[in-house]
């Protein structure tokens, strides 16, 4: 999202065949889904509910994503991965904290790839978002891609 903020606003409507939707729609879906995962994990809604069809600014999405991310890390650090969770307000299927966290990682990864595919297919070099790149950005790794 930080990279996408540097793009012309119109690029947020770029698309690529076979992906989820527009660049903006994909980013919003990604943040909205993580908001839902955190609500499943903690019962807390972080930020205003992100609904499909609504359009927020990237700054708004980033602000909500930062708060959600902090909560995700807190859950991962302290919660019991085997703790049972019943979805859909206690009426849905039963799962565990660990499964939801694993899905959260998978889901974000999958849609970020779609976002980078949209960028790449529209002639924009996407940012490096690998674990290698994270290590370099955090100053704890010198590994290349």
């Amino acid at each position, binding site marked *: 999202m930080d990279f996408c903020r540097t793009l012309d606003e119109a690029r947020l409507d770029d698309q690529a065949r076979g992906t989820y939707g527009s660049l903006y729609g994909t980013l919003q879906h990604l943040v909205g889904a993580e908001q839902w995962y955190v609500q499943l994990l903690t019962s807390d809604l972080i930020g205003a509910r992100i609904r499909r069809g609504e359009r927020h600014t990237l700054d708004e999405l980033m602000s909500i994503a930062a708060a959600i991310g902090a909560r995700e890390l807190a859950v991962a650090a302290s919660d019991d991965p085997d703790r049972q969770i019943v979805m859909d307000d206690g009426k849905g*299927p039963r799962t565990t904290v660990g499964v939801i966290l694993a899905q959260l990682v998978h889901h974000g990864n999958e849609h970020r*790839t779609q976002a980078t595919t949209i960028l790449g297919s529209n002639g924009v070099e996407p940012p490096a978002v690998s674990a290698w790149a994270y290590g370099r950005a955090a100053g704890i790794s010198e590994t290349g891609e």
Partner: protein
Amino acid sequence: MLRQLRHDVWATDQLIARCRQLTTEQLQLSVPGTYGTVLRTLQHVVSSDEGYLIRLLGVRLHEQLFRHEPDAGLDEIAAHLPHVADAVERLFAAGDLDGDRLIRDTPARRPDQPRSEMNAWAPVAQFVHHGNDHRAQIATTLSAHGIEPPDLQVWPYAMELGAVREAKDT
């Protein structure tokens, strides 16, 4: 983390199974903005998985390294996945992984390659990111050509294992 890696291996296995239903021509499909053809991307996923695990375990998984081989067929790629699955289990056989353990080198390094040091968490996190990234590219390629990709999310994997199931009132 072990479950996350097991899901990763499962997802690649599911994708290979789906690819077995494709024609030779369909395996050569690609779309702009992705790594390459379906087959080359799959080879890249599995060979990279082996590379991360060789670094983490400090031993080769088999005699001949499975490096970037653009001509590898689906059977050859599939034959390497059990090595990946076995190595994942070996990695966690002694219990939790120490993410801060410093890995000083890899047995897969070529003589002309510089040596990299890294903490163990980095190749583990990269393993998950990398497979996910490239499987999503293959799913995009399939969808873009009107081929339904398999559902590789954690939900179906967890349901298969009974870790997501219908809740019974207690």
